[in-house]
């Protein structure tokens, strides 16, 4: 069914004189904005559309039909942990007892909100082996930045201003070096061994008294557990640096081990990955940052403090060198994560990791005969295929990804990590059933067959989606970044 009328931009559905809003009668007509000096007033019109409510509703409803979400199908996206987003979380976060609170309200009127903050902070500390958390950062990358600021604060306060280098594996996610750069740190890359883990021999010469620390994730971006982590943390600590844990890959560790116990000093989590809050098409997320004992005073402002009488207050600590948010972060995201933490509880967090890891290994074992598996052995929550084993088909990872869309699956993460040219990273999470995974496996086998029998079909996929492949070169060379740019 094609909506030829509504398949437009909202501006193209605009009709002068239509209204989509209702407001009470203005009780203050004695005062007019035009009373202000003319030089302070807006002169140019905006392109805001004039549409009735039904047009707006139809427009966005139809647009949602051109979208794919976790509720629509499986996302085997490596490093994204696209698990099910529970609906009770949504309802709890939407209650006006939370949404109607202004951040400047006196603390005696927001004790419930502050308690949620505190409870989440306690639970995350227990799950990760850290001493204390801030929930202020708005996203994973923001958490990385905050964590690096904490590390720098620690060194600055010790009077050690030389430490401007941060060691990052060459397999790291792009946000790691980007966050380091924003934090004023110089990135020093450490190489990976052929099986993808940090090369300790390449690490040793990089150590020195100008190293602020090292950023790592474990399992790494290839889904492998860095078994040398105790030695790595020992080396970094010995040269006076701190260890930072990128918590994007925390899921497989739940029930198995904790970053704090591995020797990490500072870490971030992604509530919109491990803790089930929805991805929202690109946010809002939350990137809580946890620290070991001794570093709490460097957590960003403002902070939620539990007083001696058991009540909570919001404070600005003088020891902290950083403030990274307007207030206490994306509060409704934190509420959703709290509902999730309450639901999972003691009994089920211990199985989250193992079930996710089982799913990943099951897919790997079921497809490694036709897809190239560069690294053998048990993986954790995700693993990488390097394209099809049979290279003669000329079918690339991109083609396979696009063909998967035709079968109602989102593609895996493609062309990351950079270590393998036709990388396809698959992470199934623990919320996917064996049925779904079996269909995914069968589909991947089917596409591998199509690559041999009907490569043209795969090369020009997708065929069954709202749009076909698009010209992204044209998008850059002839940029249209607004509706206005399409106007003559």
């Amino acid at each position, binding site marked *: 069914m094609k909506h030829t009328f509504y398949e437009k931009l909202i501006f193209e559905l605009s009709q002068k004189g239509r209204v989509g809003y209702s407001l009470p009668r203005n009780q203050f007509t004695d005062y007019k904005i035009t009373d202000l000096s003319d030089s302070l007033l807006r002169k140019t019109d905006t392109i805001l559309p004039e549409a009735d409510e039904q047009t707006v509703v139809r427009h966005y409803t139809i647009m949602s039909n051109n979208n794919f979400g976790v509720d629509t199908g499986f996302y085997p996206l490596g490093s994204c942990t696209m698990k099910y987003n529970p609906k009770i979380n949504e309802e709890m976060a939407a209650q006006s007892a939370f949404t109607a609170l202004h951040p400047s309200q006196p603390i005696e009127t927001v004790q419930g909100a502050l308690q949620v903050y505190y409870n989440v902070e306690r639970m995350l500390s227990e799950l990760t082996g850290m001493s204390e958390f801030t929930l202020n950062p708005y996203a994973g990358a923001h958490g990385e930045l905050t964590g690096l600021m904490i590390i720098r604060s620690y060194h600055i306060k010790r009077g050690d201003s030389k430490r401007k280098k941060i060691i990052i594996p060459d397999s790291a996610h792009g946000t790691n070096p980007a966050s380091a750069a924003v934090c004023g740190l110089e990135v020093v890359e450490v190489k990976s061994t052929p099986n993808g883990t940090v090369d300790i021999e390449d690490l040793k010469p990089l150590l020195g008294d100008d190293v602020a620390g090292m950023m790592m994730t474990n399992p790494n971006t290839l889904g492998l557990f860095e078994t040398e982590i105790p030695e790595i943390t020992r080396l970094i600590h010995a040269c006076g640096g701190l260890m930072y844990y990128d918590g994007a890959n925390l899921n497989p560790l739940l029930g198995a081990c904790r970053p704090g116990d591995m020797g990490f000093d500072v870490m971030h989590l992604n509530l919109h990955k491990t803790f089930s809050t929805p991805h929202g098409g690109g946010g809002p997320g939350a990137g809580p940052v946890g620290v070991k004992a001794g570093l709490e005073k460097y957590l960003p402002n403002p902070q939620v403090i539990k007083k001696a009488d058991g009540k909570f207050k919001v404070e600005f600590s003088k020891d902290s060198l950083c403030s990274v948010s307007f207030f206490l972060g994306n509060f409704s995201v934190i509420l959703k994560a709290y509902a999730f933490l309450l639901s999972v509880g003691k009994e089920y967090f211990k199985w989250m990791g193992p079930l996710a890891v089982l799913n990943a290994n099951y897919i790997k074992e079921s497809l490694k005969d036709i897809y190239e598996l560069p690294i053998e052995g048990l993986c954790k929550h995700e693993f990488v295929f390097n394209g099809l084993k049979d290279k003669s088909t000329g079918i690339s990872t991109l083609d396979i990804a696009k063909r998967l869309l035709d079968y109602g699956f989102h593609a895996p993460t493609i062309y990351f990590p950079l270590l393998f040219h036709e990388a396809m990273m698959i992470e199934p999470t623990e919320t996917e059933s064996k049925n779904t995974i079996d269909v995914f496996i069968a589909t991947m086998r089917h596409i591998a067959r199509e690559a041999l029998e009907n490569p043209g079909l795969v090369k020009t996929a997708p065929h069954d989606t709202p749009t076909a492949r698009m010209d992204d*070169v044209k998008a850059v060379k002839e940029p249209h970044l607004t509706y206005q740019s399409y106007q003559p």
Partner: protein
Amino acid sequence: MSKVIEGLYYTESHEYVKVEGNFGYVGITDYAQNQLGNVVYVDMPDVEDVVTAGEEFGAVESVKAASDLISPVSGTVVAINENLEDNPDLINEDAFANWIMKVQLSDLSELDNLLGAQAYNEICK
């Protein structure tokens, strides 16, 4: 099979410099443009900027990648190829003819550190 021109000097990072007297025309090689794909933007230095051999002087962007440009020579930028502002894909058409910057060379001896056509050819294999 990428084109390699005799008489030019090359770097391992796939830049070239064509020397004319005290000036050098710097660009990226045919091999480089092939690897990058459709060039959509060239981040060029400004005239009068000082460039240093071995250091970054700009970048070349394709849709899915961006590559830093490392200068083979030191000196002062006297001209940039303004055609590349509106038509960056000229580099794909002919990387050698469409140089990126013209530099007044400050140290001709630096050319000894660069690769000749044959040595560069070996790298590309």
